[in-house]
């Protein structure tokens, strides 16, 4: 564990009843190197979001419920390639954030098995921003 996430772990507010009052968000990181078209990106981000809803829903249900109640805030950003996505997912895991990877079935546009989207969250906005804040919007 890095020093920062260690600090975070001891100073972060415990997940508790106050969850509703803190803005939560889900960040969807697109693999920009694949050159996907708009419609393809939308479908992949849709996959990633539904996947997150189901997996995070069973691990951190109170966070997911609060996120849905707040209007399910989502932000789309881009990563240059798969390597950067891997680095981001490691950092997100270290910060105890939920992650979900979307791998394309390859029916259209891009090769089968392409790593298209990394979903980080839903989590507290400040915590998620620490990992993805430097990435540019799509």
């Amino acid at each position, binding site marked *: 564990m890095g020093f920062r996430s260690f600090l975070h772990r001891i100073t972060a507010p415990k997940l508790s009843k106050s969850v509703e009052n803190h803005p939560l968000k889900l960040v969807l990181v*697109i693999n920009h190197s694949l050159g996907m078209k708009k419609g393809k990106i939308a479908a992949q*981000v*849709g996959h990633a979001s539904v996947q997150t809803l189901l997996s995070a829903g069973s691990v951190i249900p109170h966070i997911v419920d609060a996120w849905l109640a707040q209007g399910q805030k989502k932000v789309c950003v881009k990563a240059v390639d798969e390597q950067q996505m891997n680095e981001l997912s490691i950092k997100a895991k270290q910060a105890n954030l939920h992650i979900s990877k979307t791998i394309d079935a390859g029916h259209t546009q891009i090769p089968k098995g392409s790593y298209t989207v990394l979903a980080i969250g839903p989590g507290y906005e400040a915590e998620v921003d620490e990992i993805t804040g430097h990435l540019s919007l799509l």
Partner: protein
Amino acid sequence: MLSVDDQLSMALLVRNDLEMTPGKVAVQCAHAAVDCSLQARKSIPQIFEMWRNTGSRKICLLALDEEDILYWKEKCVEVGLVHSIVRDAGRTEVSAETITVLGVGPAHKTSLDDLFSNLDLYGVE
């Protein structure tokens, strides 16, 4: 192995008359997909599970404007398909309560194809 007739899919109709960035469109589509999933999980759990287990197919289609979206929404009500209209909160690019996307399904691909046969694919160029 499922036959083509049994394939399940979800359609996401995106308004083409709004100037939205690709990221904005993606997020709006994701809202629709999540809303439809939440509904389907309750109302048609077997279809929902089957859709999830067969790759959660999604397709983005092109809707002209708000009127077009509302027209297709009515059609969904008539046919009895799970659907969800996304109204943007208006924090960014578009004004509040703007209708952006209509999500339909998961449903049998054949019934979606029948209904939306006239619509073009969204964002393939």
